[in-house]
């Protein structure tokens, strides 16, 4: 596996006769539909005989086009797609990240060409400030807290593990902790793009107006519960995380799509390409720090940071 400036990725895989190429554009959830429409148009103007298969996917602010094509024709098609999509307004979407999966002679040169064809047009942006929105619907209060995704700062693997601990599997910590409150509250955490920046969103719903109290309690309870976990439980968590990440390897298509999704969302493409070693490196301290960073937007809107 090689990578160039974190925008392109190639994974060697001999299961298909056709290399699978994935292009992922970063936009906002509110512009996702329009971006997908324009990119579908662009795709329609390329040589339709070249890809033997294609699919548009993506959500939470990303649009991903994945194609399978013969190696000899892939560069010509990519040039055509770059030309057609160059009219895409740079305020709508960034230049794409690229993932290539397959047996590909001279992948390095191909990816260098690809990098030149799709110039980066998203400048480094400031950290996403933490924000809260609340509303009442039929006696239920919804609280949305959004902030910067801490993956880059706290470590992609550590953040993924913390998210698995909170929301993954049947013994997920978040629903278990919230249900112990007994007030009918539900809380979820999700990741996506906000203003093209990697973000996390905490969404809480509760009866009455106790939304902030729910988050106050969580901000104390979750780090404490994490600290109380024994080593065997942490190993079990890593096993669960590894299974989830390894699933991308079921097929070359899934691998290209998922690796590129992790790349465009800043979740760490190496988590897909080398999940075992990435997870093995995470220490208890890393995990504690990741949990604290995931809770940071909550603490900031509560005025505790």
């Amino acid at each position, binding site marked *: 596996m090689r990578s160039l400036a974190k925008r392109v990725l190639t994974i060697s895989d001999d299961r298909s006769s056709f290399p699978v190429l994935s292009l992922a554009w970063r936009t906002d959830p509110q512009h996702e539909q329009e971006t997908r429409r324009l990119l579908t148009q662009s795709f329609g103007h390329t040589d339709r005989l070249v890809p033997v298969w294609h699919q548009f996917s993506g959500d939470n602010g990303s649009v991903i086009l994945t194609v399978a094509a013969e190696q000899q024709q892939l560069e010509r098609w990519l040039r055509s797609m770059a030309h057609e999509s160059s009219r895409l307004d740079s305020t709508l979407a960034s230049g794409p990240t690229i993932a290539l999966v397959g047996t590909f002679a001279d992948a390095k040169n191909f990816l260098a060409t690809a990098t030149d064809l799709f110039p980066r047009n998203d400048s480094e942006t400031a950290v996403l400030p933490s924000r809260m929105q609340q509303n009442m619907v039929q006696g239920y209060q919804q609280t949305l807290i959004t902030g910067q995704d801490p993956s880059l700062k706290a470590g992609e693997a550590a953040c993924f593990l913390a998210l698995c601990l909170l929301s993954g599997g*049947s013994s997920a910590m978040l629903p278990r902790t919230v249900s112990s409150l007994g007030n009918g509250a539900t809380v979820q955490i999700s990741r996506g793009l906000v203003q093209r920046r990697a973000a996390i969103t905490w969404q809480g719903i509760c009866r009455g107006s106790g939304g902030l109290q729910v988050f106050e309690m969580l901000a104390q309870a979750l780090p404490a519960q994490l600290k109380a976990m024994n080593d065997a439980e942490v190993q079990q968590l890593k096993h*669960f995380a590894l299974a989830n990440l390894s699933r991308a390897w079921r097929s070359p298509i899934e691998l290209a799509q998922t690796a590129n999704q992790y790349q465009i969302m800043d979740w760490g493409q190496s988590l897909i390409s080398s999940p075992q070693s990435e997870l093995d490196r995470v220490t208890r301290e890393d995990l504690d720090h990741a949990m604290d960073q995931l809770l940071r937007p909550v603490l900031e809107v509560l005025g505790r940071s």
Partner: protein
Amino acid sequence: MNSTPLEAAQMRSMTLDQGARAIAIQNPSARNSTFVLAISSGMRHELPGEEGMLHLLEHLIYQDSAAITSSDREAELNSVGGVLGGHTHMDYTEFYETALPSDLSGMVARVIEQVFHPAFKPEQINEQIHAVCTERSQRLAPAPGEVLPFPHLTCQYWEDHAHGHDGTGDKSLFSRVSVERLQDLHAKHYRPEHAVLVTFGPQEPSEMLEILAEEMGSVSIAKSMPKATASHHMEARQNSAKNQIVHDPGLPGRRLLAATSAADARTINEAFLGDLIVASLLSMQTGLDSSVGIFGPADLTENDLFILVDDTGLDLEPILRLRALASVDDTILQSAAKRALFTVEKSVHDDERLARTTARDMLLRGSPSFAHELVSRLRLLSEQTTRLRKLLLGSTQRLATQPWHTLDVTPTLQEDA
């Protein structure tokens, strides 16, 4: 352990004590393992009065079993980050799990126990009849006029019960199903000698086969149960009604669903290869979608349908579209062949699907490497333009002379033809 190396280098198989066939596929670089248990009974095996019951049985396999509740089983799989699936096809039913290779034994034990020892609790039967109905309506809802090739076109095409009934399941199951009836149906169809077990993973094949033998050894099945009769071996009869119109004033445009008999897919033959190329060529045209097989290529060995879905709104008979294919140029023909290759290749380059396809082909064809061989044949063909054209002409001529059944889903009121 006596096992036999199969044609594909990393595959080994054996027959287990109770008669089940076991196959192990090794890919040393695989990151996941998959276990598939497939039973040689599907919707075609339902007798009159049993419509939808094999689909319901598949759902009930995921409910409580003799050893474990469904929620505990789900928690067990979730805790290791595994995923599962189950599908009822026309000629077989499959159950599978995928997780890390170190969890293979757990997957095998779990699936075997739930498949052979379901508890059939009355409240769960009722819940699952609702679930089957919901699944049916959710599948149909996005389709124009809520009409799809399966089940609407198949039910129109065939007159005999085995081929022509709708096996998806509806509310009439409430009045037809009882615990005893389901137990009888399960005892008849879910027997080890009707099962194929496939494991895929990085482990040594012999190691995987040992796991299968050990876990299947724990299954206790009454030996006196009658063997299931293959109802679909009755002669398939086509319906005399050839065309139907479904009116739905809210539709934005007309959709024509058309079907004719697909080539026999028991073996890789010229007609079958030709049909794959024709379907691929038709699908390359804007507004058209075509497939060999109601559930995809090779999912049935016989009496399958060649399907054309036409959203162009043009009043063009399928036969005319087929005849027009004779004049496609070589570049387009080669491109269609490569698309057909990729379509088939998806069933083997995806590890989980490879395991499922192997189970299917062992059950339906007695040949676990059928899909691999089909990929090899199409790969060779995609470079042979003269042969491709010969196959194309052969299939278009055959398909064009066969009777077609159409279902016209239209927003306007028209006089029936």
